C-alpha cells in the first residue's frame, strides 16, 4: 500500500473511484486535478484501490489475453486465479491468514470474493486452458499467416514474419483484430462514452527527475503526516488525458501528432523524430480527412512494422546517431561514432524479408554492435564511460534506503529460501508422510520451451515422455517407492498436480523440477486428491512479493516498465510428492 500511495510502483485500478468520474468531480468542484486528488486523498474521501482490493468497486472486471496462456501457464498461483478471479473449480486448500498475520492497514473481509471477472476474452491460435476458460475467443493468425517483426538482445537481427498462407477460416492478424475492435468501440462510443477526461496515476519513473524523490533514502509517508502529498514527489504523478473514444479507430490506423511535439524518450534520452515521421509519410502514405488527416498511415501489419523500425534507433541510423549526440552533451564522452557507420540507414521490411539484417547500435540499449560485434549488456558504460543509471553513476552495491536497512540488505547478502514450514505449515524438506516426501519445488525454463508451449506438439512429445512430467532425484524417489515414469501426485496448500515422474540421478536430493509451460491439456488425468483435472506447474505456486522489490523513487530503485518492478518470488515453494494410483482416469 505504501509503495502505491508513495508513487513507487504503479497500481491499477489506482483509486476506488472511476478515473473518468474523478476528472468530472474535480471540474464540478472547480479545482485542478492535482489539488483536487490531493485534497480528496487527505480527507479520506478518495482511497487507493489497493487499500481494499476485495471491495466490489475495486475488482478487475474484464480480462483480455493477447497470445498469452495465463490460466494454463504464466499465472503464478494458478489455482488462486481460478478461485478468486474466475470463481470456478480449483484446488486451493490454503487457509486464510490468521489474525496476527493479516495486514494492518488493508481492509480485511471475512469472505474473500470469488469470481471477480465479468468477462475473459482471449486472442490466440491454439486451444489452451485460457481459451477454454474464456467467454470470447478471437482466432488469431499464426506467425506463418501474417506480417510482423520480432527481435531480442540475444542476437543482432530483426526478423520478419511473412505469411506462407492466408489466415484460415475466420482467423485474423493481430493488427486487423485490434483495428476492428477499435472501430467498433468508436462506433459504440458515439452514444456511450464520447469524449472524456481520464486521470492516470503514473509511478515515479526511472531515468527521470522522479528518481530523486527520496533524498538519502529516507522514507517519509504522507499518510502518517510526515510530509505533504505532492504528486510526482511523495505520491504518484497525475496526468489528465483527454480520451475521444469516438476516434479510437481513426487514431489506431495512423501515427499520432504527439510524437512530433514530444519526441520519444528512452532511458533519459529524448529523440526528435520529426524526420522519421516525414519518412513514414512517404513510405506508408498519409490519411486523408478526419482526425488523422495528413498523418502516416498504419493500415497493415507491414506499415506498422515500418513505423516501428523508423521510430527506433536500432533500426534507424539517423535516430541512433542523433540520440548518441544528445547523450554526449550529458556525458561529455564521445559516443556517436558507435552509430555513425549506419547514419543514413533505415531498415525496411522488404530488406529484412530479403535477408537477415543486423540492428544498429543505439542509446536505447547499453551494448555495442558496431563493426559486427555481438551484443553484450553495458559495453557502452564500461568502454565509453557512460555513467551507470545508478545513484552514484558507478556500479553500486551499497543501498542506503530505509527499507533495505530494515530488512538487512543494504549490502548484497545471501538469503536462503523462505521457511515454508514456519510460514505456512508445510512439512519440512525430507519429511515423509501419507502424502509422500516433502521436496523443494522449482519451475525452471524447459530446454524446449522457455515460456512457450510448443513442446506439446507431436514432435516434441514424441521426443520426450509424452505429457506433463516432473524431474526428481532417485534418492527422493526411493524414499516413497516412486519408479521412473510412474504417475505421481503433488499436493501442497496451493494446489494439486498429476504427471509422470522422470527419476534421474542427475537431480539433487530434496528438489524437484517441474519445467515451465506444461498445460493441463495433454495427458493429465483426474487426481486422487479431489477427482478433478490435475493442475499445471503454477498450480503449486503463489505470488509472494518481496518488499525490497517495490521500493521506488530512489535512483536505480525506480519503476521502469519491464525493467524494474516486483517479481513473483515463487521459487521458495515446497510440495509433497507421492506415487499415485497407476490406473489413471481421465
Amino acid at each position, binding site marked *: 500500500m505504501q509503495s502505491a500511495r508513495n508513487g513507487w510502483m504503479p497500481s491499477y485500478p489506482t483509486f476506488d473511484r472511476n478515473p473518468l468520474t474523478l476528472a468530472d468531480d474535480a471540474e464540478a468542484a472547480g479545482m485542478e486535478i492535482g489539488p483536487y486528488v490531493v485534497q480528496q486523498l487527505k480527507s479520506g474521501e478518495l482511497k487507493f484501490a489497493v487499500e481494499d482490493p476485495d471491495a466490489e468497486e475495486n475488482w478487475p472486471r474484464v480480462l483480455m489475453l493477447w497470445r498469452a496462456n495465463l490460466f494454463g501457464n504464466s499465472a503464478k498461483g494458478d489455482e488462486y486465479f481460478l478461485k478468486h478471479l474466475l470463481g470456478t*473449480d480449483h484446488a486451493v486448500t490454503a487457509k486464510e491468514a490468521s489474525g496476527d498475520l493479516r495486514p494492518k492497514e488493508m481492509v480485511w473481509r471475512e469472505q474473500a470474493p470469488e469470481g471477480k471477472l465479468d468477462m475473459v476474452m482471449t486472442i490466440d491460435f491454439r*486451444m489452451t*486452458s485460457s481459451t*477454454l476458460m474464456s467467454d470470447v475467443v478471437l482466432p488469431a493468425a499464426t506467425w506463418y499467416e501474417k506480417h510482423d517483426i520480432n527481435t531480442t538482445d540475444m542476437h543482432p537481427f530483426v526478423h520478419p514474419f*511473412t505469411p*506462407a*498462407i492466408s489466415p484460415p477460416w475466420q482467423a485474423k492478424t493481430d493488427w486487423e483484430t485490434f483495428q476492428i475492435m477499435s472501430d467498433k468501440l468508436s462506433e459504440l462510443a458515439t452514444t456511450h462514452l464520447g469524449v472524456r477526461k481520464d486521470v492516470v496515476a503514473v509511478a515515479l519513473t526511472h531515468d527521470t527527475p522522479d528518481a530523486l524523490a527520496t533524498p538519502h533514502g529516507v522514507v517519509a509517508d504522507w499518510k502518517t503526516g510526515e510530509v505533504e502529498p505532492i504528486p510526482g514527489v511523495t505520491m504518484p504523478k497525475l496526468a489528465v488525458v483527454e480520451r475521444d473514444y469516438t476516434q479510437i479507430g481513426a487514431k489506431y490506423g495512423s501515427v499520432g501528432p504527439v510524437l512530433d511535439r514530444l519526441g520519444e524518450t528512452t532511458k533519459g534520452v529524448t529523440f526528435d523524430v520529426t524526420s522519421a515521421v516525414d519518412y513514414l509519410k512517404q513510405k506508408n502514405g498519409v490519411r486523408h480527412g478526419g482526425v488523422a488527416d495528413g498523418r502516416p498511415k498504419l493500415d497493415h501489419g507491414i506499415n506498422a512494422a515500418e513505423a516501428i523500425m523508423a521510430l527506433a534507433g536500432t533500426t534507424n541510423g539517423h535516430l541512433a546517431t542523433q540520440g548518441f549526440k544528445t547523450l554526449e552533451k550529458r556525458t561529455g564522452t564521445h559516443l556517436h561514432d558507435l552509430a555513425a557507420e549506419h547514419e543514413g540507414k533505415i531498415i525496411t521490411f*522488404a*530488406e529484412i*524479408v*530479403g*535477408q537477415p539484417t543486423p540492428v544498429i547500435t543505439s542509446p536505447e540499449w547499453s551494448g555495442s554492435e558496431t563493426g559486427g560485434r555481438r551484443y553484450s549488456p553495458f559495453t557502452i558504460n564500461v568502454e565509453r564511460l557512460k555513467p551507470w543509471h545508478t545513484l552514484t553513476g558507478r556500479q553500486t552495491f551499497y543501498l542506503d534506503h530505509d527499507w533495505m536497512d530494515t530488512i538487512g540488505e543494504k549490502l548484497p547478502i545471501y538469503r536462503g529460501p523462505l521457511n515454508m514450514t514456519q510460514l505456512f505449515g508445510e512439512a519440512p524438506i525430507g519429511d515423509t508422510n501419507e502424502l509422500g516426501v516433502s521436496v523443494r519445488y522449482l519451475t525452471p525454463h524447459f*530446454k*524446449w520451451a522457455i515460456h512457450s508451449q510448443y513442446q506439446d506438439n*507431436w*514432435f*516434441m*512429445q*514424441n*521426443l*520426450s*515422455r*509424452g*505429457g506433463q512430467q516432473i*524431474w526428481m*532425484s*532417485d*534418492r527422493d524417489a526411493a524414499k516413497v517407492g516412486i*519408479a*521412473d*515414469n510412474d504417475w505421481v501426485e503433488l499436493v501442497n496448500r496451493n494446489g494439486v498436480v498429476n504427471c509422470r515422474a*522422470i*527419476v*534421474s*540421478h*542427475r*537431480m*539433487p*536430493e530434496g528438489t524437484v523440477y517441474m519445467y515451465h509451460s506444461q498445460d*493441463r*491439456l*495433454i*495427458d*493429465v*488425468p*483426474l487426481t486422487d486428491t479431489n477427482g*478433478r*483435472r490435475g493442475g499445471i506447474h503454477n498450480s503449486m505456486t503463489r505470488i509472494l512479493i518481496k518488499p525490497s522489490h517495490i521500493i521506488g523513487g530512489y535512483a536505480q530503485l525506480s519503476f521502469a516498465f519491464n525493467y524494474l518492478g516486483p517479481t513473483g518470488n515463487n521459487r521458495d515453494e515446497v510440495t509433497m510428492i507421492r506415487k499415485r494410483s497407476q490406473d489413471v482416469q*481421465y
Partner: protein
Amino acid sequence: MRIMAQMSMVMNLDKCIGCHTCTVTCKQAWTNRTGMEYVWFNNVETRPGLGYPRRYEDQEKWKGGWTLNRSGKLTLKGGNRFMKLLNIFSNPKMPGLEDYYEPWTYDYETLLSAPLGKNFPVARPYSLVSGKPMHPQWGSNWDDDLGGTYVTGKDDVMLKGIADKVKFEFEQSFMFYLPRICEHCLNPSCMASCPSGAIYKRSEDGIVLVDQNRCRGWRMCISGCPYKKIYFNHSTGKAEKCTFCYPRVEVGIPTVCSETCVGRLRYIGLMLYDADAVLEAASTTNDTDLYEAQRACFLDPRDPEVAREAERQGIPLDWIEAAKRSPVRRLIQDYGLALPLHPEYRTMPMVWYIPPLSPIVDAVRGTGYDAEDAGNLFGAIDALRIPIEYLANLFTAGDVAPVRLVLEKMAAMRSYMRDINLGREGDEQIAEAVGMSGAEMYEMFRLLALAKYDERYVIPTAHREQAHALEELATDCPVGGGGSGPFGEGSGAGPVPVAIQTLAETKARMQADDMAEVPGSVSYMEWDGQGLPGRPSPQDAADRVGIPGEDGVAR
C-alpha cells in the same frame, strides 16, 4: 590408386546442447509421413544412455557391420549372402517396435469439440500403430538428459568393461549428447547385405541411397547396418534412410540438420580417398588399429601427385579445390581432432566426431581450480568423472590414447587462446606439448570457434554434365502406398523434382552480404503461393534424369 570423393561430416560434441533442432527439422523435411512415424533419420542421444533403437550398438545381438572370419577375411557379421537367402523370409536380427518405440499422437480435436463438462478436456496419447489409447513407456529419446538412466544406464553397451568406473549417482553424474545420422560409409554393410542390389553408393560424392524402385523390402540392410540407420517404411514396405540431403548438397548447400544446427557444431566437406585401399584397411587385424587404417586411406589433395591423378580420373577441378579447403579434412587429418564412430564395425564410417571436453572443463571449474590452465586440464582428463574409456569405446574401439590426445589438444587450445584473449603472447610451449605449433593452434581455434557458414560448409556443386548419374527423380520418391511425396503428406500428387534453381537462389541469399548482390533474388512477398518461386519447367528437370543402371552396384 582409384581416387574417390566422399561427402563427409564432422560433429563437434563440445558444442552440442541437445536441443534436437536437427532432429525436428530433419523429421519435418524427410520422414513426416505415413509409415515413417517412428523414424528419425537424425536423432540425438544422451550418453550414457541406450540410444535409438535401444542398444543398437550390441552387435553380439544384432550382428550388424563386418567382422573378420577365421582366415582374416572381411565378412558380414550377419552371415554371407547364402546365409541371408536361407533366412530371407524370417529375418531374425531386426529391432522390433519395442526396440525403437511405439509412436503416438493425440486426440487434439477433443480440446475443440469437448462438450461443457466438469473438468478441463484433455488430449490423450493414442498409438499410431494400433490406434488405441496408450501410455507411452519408451520413446526415441526416452533417456534424454539421463532421465531414468540410474536404472537403464547399466544396459548401455558402451559400459562394457568399464561398468565399475561409471556410477549413476548425483555426485558422479556426467553426460553429453551424441547426434547421429547415416554414416555414409566407405564400406557400407547395408549395401552388401541387400539381396536386391537396391542400395548404392554414389560414385560422385559417396552418398549412400536406397533405390526405391529396386527395394523389395527384405530388410537385410536394417540388420546389416550396425548403426541402425536404415529404417523400414511400413506403409510402402521399403527401406529408407538418411540421404545426406543430396538435393541440397548437389547445389552446394548443407544438409537440413547442419543448416539448422543452433550450436553450429557440424562441418561438411569432401574427403578424397583411395577406393582400392578400403578393403585392406577394413580388414585390419586389430580393432584398435582401424582408426589409423581408415585415416591412411585418405589422400591429401594438396599433394600435387594426388591432385593430378584425381583430375585425370575425372574428379572435377572445383571438387579437388573444395577437398583442399575441406574443414572435415582439416579436422580429421591436419589436426587429428575428429574420430570415427565405432570403427570396430569396419564399415569405414564417414561422419566423425570431436569428443567432448566441456564436461571435464565444467568439473574442473566446479572444484574451484583454473579450468583454462593446461596443466589442470591435462590432469583432469584422466582423473575426472567422464571416464576416457567410455569415449574410447565409442570412437576408437577402446583405445584411450587417441582420445586422450584429442582432449589434450583441445585443453591446450583453451589455455593457449586464453593468453591471446588477455592480450598476452601465445605460449608456444603449450602448443608444442601436444605436437602443434602456435600458428596451427590458432587456425584450429579459428575453425572450431569462429568459422562462419562458408568455412564450416565447403560443398562443391554437382556438375550438370554428370546430372544423369545423380538420378534425382529415380531415387527420391517412394513409390506406391498412396502417393505421398518425399516432403511430407499432402505435398503434391505426383513426384516433384527437386528444383535446383530455387535451392541455388536460397544459397546465394544466405551467403550474400547485401541484397543487391543476389542475382534473380526471389521476393516471397510477391510469390502467389502456387508452386515454387522461380522453379524450372518440369521438362527441364526431366531432361536431366537418367535411367537407373542395371548392374546393382555403385554408380
